[in-house]
């Protein structure tokens, strides 16, 4: 089989959230870890994020939210993914997310939530361990 396979990630900022220092830093960190990272930029709707992941054949969608909209946007993105048939794509989230929201988000199909202070190696390891094996 091909040895050129790389983990492809779409990193997105859903909703009205103007701060992307963290997302940009993570883009660099994932690229340093050998992944190909498509950064969508700010203010993305769930439909835009899912369509981007579809066209880019992403293995992973990373969502960053600092504005408190995660309980609406994150589950909505998983919903749109299901409609589009993207059932084998890993979704992870991060940003300012209260711990009491985490169980609901995980129940909604977000594989893991990484809060502030998470060692970046942990995020990279989680993605490597859980991203789909391409057929």
């Amino acid at each position: 089989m091909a040895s050129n396979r790389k983990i492809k990630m779409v990193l997105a900022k859903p909703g009205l959230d103007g701060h992307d220092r963290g997302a940009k830093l993570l883009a660099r960190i994932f690229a340093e870890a050998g992944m190909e990272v498509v950064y969508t930029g700010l203010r993305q709707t769930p439909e835009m994020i899912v369509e981007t992941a579809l066209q880019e054949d992403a293995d992973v969608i990373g969502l960053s939210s600092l504005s408190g909209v995660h309980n609406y946007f994150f589950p909505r993105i998983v919903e749109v993914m299901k409609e589009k048939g993207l059932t084998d794509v890993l979704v992870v989230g991060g940003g300012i997310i209260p711990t009491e929201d985490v169980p609901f988000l995980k129940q909604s199909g977000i594989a893991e939530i990484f809060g502030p202070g998470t060692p970046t190696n942990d995020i990279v390891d989680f993605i490597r361990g859980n991203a789909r094996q391409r057929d």
Partner: protein
Amino acid sequence: MAPDYAKEVLEGSPRAVARLISWLEDEDERAYPCMEALHPHTGKAYIIGITGSPGAGKSTLTDKVTFAFRQRGLTVGIVAIDPSSPFTGGAVLGDRIRMSRFSVDPGVYIRSMATRGFLGGLARATGDVVRVLDAFGKDVIIIETVGVGQDEVDVIRIADATCLVLVPGLGDAIQSMKAGVMEIADVFAINKADRPGADQLAAEVVSRIELDNQFKPKEWMPPVVKTIAVEDQGVDALMAAFDAHREYLESSGKFIERRKERVREETLRMIHDELFRVIRDALVSNGRLDGLVHEIMEHKRNPYAIMRETVSRWLRASCER
């Protein structure tokens, strides 16, 4: 059983397009039969290359040009290429940021690609990806190269029209005299034309084109268009330049001539790549290459003789088969 992506691409499945492109990027052999099946459906799209230095405004211009084609009712495929790290193999692909408005437009398909060590301003699979989008039915395909320096000119081997995006402030008139990237443009865009030095840059480029024409008369004089992409200025003129160039290509017969030349080069390159792959895999898998390297390092044998011997042995072996 492998999914029949070729059939799904022709039926209009964006997911199949995405998967097939990944196979092509990964040099997965399962892509070959799909590409064979798609070949009769290729050759219809008009292919534009947009190239220029990093930060010149290629992505923003790609966005504006795409919008203009959409206004004409045409569908667009975009292949946007960014560099891979030579150290980690990873990449940050940021071209889509400028094209967000097309994310949910079913008439536009955007694919970001990393170079994965391929030089020349493109990713290795770019030509194949263009063919997939062509077969998928996109009317226009825009290739946005990586930010180029002086010598990354591979885009002309794929595009029907190549637009070189220049910006003021990157050097004096000597830069516009040099060989390489300055020679490949069918259309020049002087972007960020509100910045100091834009008029002078445009004049230098025009003078180079005129001088080139004195040395060797040109049938096509590349237009030089000033643009301020973020403010939507000059985009109409740029579109008019593309239209005029296409008209020239078609009326002069160059359209077919250039495509014929391209098929010729590409067929040779494909044979070369496949031959290389077969011999390399055989040499590496049986450990023979390590032995040869050792002998060369010890000066027991030299690489020139080994090269001739290896190739002639392979040719003999395949003749006997």
